[in-house]
């Protein structure tokens, strides 16, 4: 995809968006039910929502929680994943744990964590951190495991300490894989962010979305969905750009995104 990011395929997603909007408009006009307002009507709500200070504060609160959760997850998951990749014993310890945690719906922990930490930022951030950690651990583990042994031997022969080798040899070499994990983690961060806000409705895009649904403001519901969708797409593009810059040297890996919420 990186190769084809030149002019023709940069247009294609835009065209796809326009196509989807057109399809939506036609479907709404044909079906003519109140539950599906036409695209034009929902899009007219966009400036209204984005011009509202409170809504902007909510979106900012969501993004802040997501960013905090994401950074916390990286701080925790990267060292764990890299150590797992370099030590069979650590891997044997964490693997069964990860296997058991993998099918747990992270966002569904929200009601339980809410009992302990309340409905504020702390619970939501923790749930986001949990969601992001798993793919980052998994992919940094895979990446660190596949690092060329010779690189590590050379570094060791030159007198680099174990920790320094992990930081200066293993981490950069595993970076292409790690980015796959980060990209999957982003999707999960968005999912857990929205879901946690739907469950503990206080602030954030998820709560605006579901409150609009409860108040039957259907145009706002769809406008919020568009905003969240654009948010996901833009963040994805940013991470993809970052990846191209940092690991341009690596061949693009083909990997099926392992994503669970």
């Amino acid at each position: 995809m990186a190769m084809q990011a030149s002019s023709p395929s940069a247009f294609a997603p835009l065209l796809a968006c326009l196509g989807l909007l057109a399809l939506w408009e036609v479907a709404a006009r044909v079906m003519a039910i109140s539950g599906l307002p036409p695209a034009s009507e929902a899009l007219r709500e966009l400036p209204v929502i984005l011009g509202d200070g409170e809504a902007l504060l909510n979106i900012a609160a969501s993004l802040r929680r997501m960013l905090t959760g994401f950074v916390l997850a990286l701080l925790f998951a990267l060292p764990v994943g890299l150590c797992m990749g370099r030590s069979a014993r650590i891997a044997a310890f964490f693997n069964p744990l990860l296997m058991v945690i993998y099918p747990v719906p992270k966002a569904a922990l929200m009601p339980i964590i809410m009992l302990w930490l309340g409905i504020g930022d702390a619970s939501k951030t923790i749930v986001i951190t949990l969601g992001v950690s798993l793919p980052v651990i998994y992919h940094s583990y895979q990446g660190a495991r596949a690092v060329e042994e010779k690189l590590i031997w050379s570094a060791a022969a030159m007198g680099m300490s174990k920790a320094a080798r992990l930081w200066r040899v293993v981490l950069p070499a595993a970076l292409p894989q790690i980015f796959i994990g980060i990209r999957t983690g982003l999707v999960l961060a968005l999912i857990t962010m929205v879901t946690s806000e739907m469950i503990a409705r206080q602030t954030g895009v998820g709560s605006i979305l579901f409150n609009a649904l409860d108040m039957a403001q259907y145009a706002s519901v769809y406008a919020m969905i568009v905003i969240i969708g654009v948010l996901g797409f833009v963040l994805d593009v940013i991470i993809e750009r970052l990846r191209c810059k940092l690991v341009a040297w690596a061949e693009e890996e083909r990997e099926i995104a392992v994503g669970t919420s």
Partner: protein
Amino acid sequence: MGALPLACLLALWHGIAVAGLAPAVLLPSPAAVVARLLEQVRNPLFLQHAATTLMRLFAGFGIAVVVGVALGLAAASNRRAEALIRPLWRVLAPVPKIALYPALVLLLGFEHASKVALVVADAVFPILLATYQGAAAVEPKLIWCARAAGASRNRTLLTVVLPAALPTILTGARVSLVISAIVVFLAEMLTSTDGLGHLLVYASRSFHTVDMFVPLITISIIGLLLNAGFNAMRKRLLAGFPDEP
């Protein structure tokens, strides 16, 4: 060795609960949760909720497999289809599908359909991507041979490309299966009157902490079992294929 960290985790949980660091209302002991789980497994009402969840899960997953494989094969074998599907996939894949759920509820109602649709929306992308990549990586010589032997384009697709791409497709499908289990649970938590997710929300409203853990553990066990079962099936189906790393 494998069970050790799990035992540690359980022991830690048990220790915290027994030492009274957390009141039982906030954190019931693992023994209490397991006892309640065993009790519920024999409760027909609980089983009915679990069956509803499973039904939605498999309906959504089944549709996602059919749609995902069909679109993936189309994208890999036809340039025009690829030009159409790829940008759509690029735009829609990073969108958190759960945000679509209110729209699905408005369109399809509060019953099964909206939840199944959400499962499909979330489960279809890994399968689509896996099918596309698997089919695009099929050895071209195989396809040329089949074509030279007189097989039609469609026949080649079904009898050569599809089996050759099967290992990758099944990997994608396994990922999707676990996603389906998670998503169906979340959808039931958000709006529902039945299913395991509803049981969790219902218990949290009445502060029955033990009953909150039971559905969560049940869905996780379902996910684990489905994952393991799918792996076993994959091994059987792929007997003779070179093993993937």
